[in-house]
């Protein structure tokens, strides 16, 4: 009898002030955590294949760069006007560096950089360009498409929202 009452109490709790306070604090914490610190997002598009697949789900951890700066090969989310729509890209060059693609190979300051995450051969060519102050250069891992169709380039560091959790 007691067990049955406990089960009923679990699914249909009495609305007491303590219960209301508890529910409100859980709702508020969840809203703040998932709304501002660890934002859930779904991946649309194939620009980060095969590392991240179209239709995948992840979370954007916003505190990653609170005390540090983005490094080369980090995967970051870049915002547009807000956090509802973001770009998922990989950092390939940092401020002051010279970035260049030569026949499907990445060159930073004239030195070839290994990119183990790029699985499919590509033949991009991009003339050398300097990354401006307070900016990073981001590209997707999927470079099998023509260079004109791929959304990549220099972004302000202020636009970096965070990193995917996995």
């Amino acid at each position, binding site marked *: 009898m007691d067990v049955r009452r406990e089960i009923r109490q679990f699914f249909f709790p009495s609305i007491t002030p303590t219960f209301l306070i508890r529910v409100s604090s859980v709702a508020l914490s969840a809203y703040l955590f998932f709304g501002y610190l660890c934002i859930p997002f779904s991946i*649309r*598009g194939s620009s980060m294949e095969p590392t991240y697949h179209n239709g995948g789900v992840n979370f954007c951890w916003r505190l990653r760069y609170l005390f540090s700066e983005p490094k080369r090969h980090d995967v970051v989310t870049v915002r*547009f*006007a*807000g*956090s*509802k*729509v973001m770009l998922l890209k990989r950092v390939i060059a940092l401020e002051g560096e010279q970035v260049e693609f030569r026949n499907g190979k990445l060159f930073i300051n004239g030195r070839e950089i290994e990119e183990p995450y790029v699985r499919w051969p590509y033949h991009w060519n991009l003339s050398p360009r300097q990354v401006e102050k307070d900016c990073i250069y*981001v590209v997707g891992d999927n470079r099998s498409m023509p260079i004109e169709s791929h959304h990549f380039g*220099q972004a302000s560091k202020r636009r970096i929202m965070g990193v995917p959790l996995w």
Partner: protein
Amino acid sequence: MVKTKYLFIAALIVIVGIVMAISAFPSEERRVKKRFRLLSECVSKSTEENGLTMLQRMKEIGSLFDAQCELKVPDQSLSGSYTREEISTYAGSARSQASQLDLKFYDLRVAFPEKGVAKVTLTARLTGQSAAGERMDETRELECLLKKIEKKWLFSQIEVIEVLKK
């Protein structure tokens, strides 16, 4: 107990009153946002759209713009000043090249730098399918200026903000 019941009813009446007042007398910000909702509805296109609806939508698109509207699009021949008729014709021709279109706006931030002028920063996402069957998916950050003319907020400038600079 009776007192609690009356208090609850009074609170409910106050809430309903506030909601009704907000919908009956929308703030300027809500009015501006409504223009974006209208633009989204007019540009979006379903596969079943007939010629009559298309003409009506073209006319409605024109009515959302100022007599002269400035478009600023980086690296595109589209930049310049256009009359509302030109915008309407251009939008109609672009719509006719697609079998299905869906324009959505996210993260709208409205500011009023001076009286009768609204500055809106937002993310616009256009998805759909071309008449040839190709998938479209374009996301851009926009900065729009709207002017209040004869009690209507009209688009007078649309600028595409470059998030990634190749």
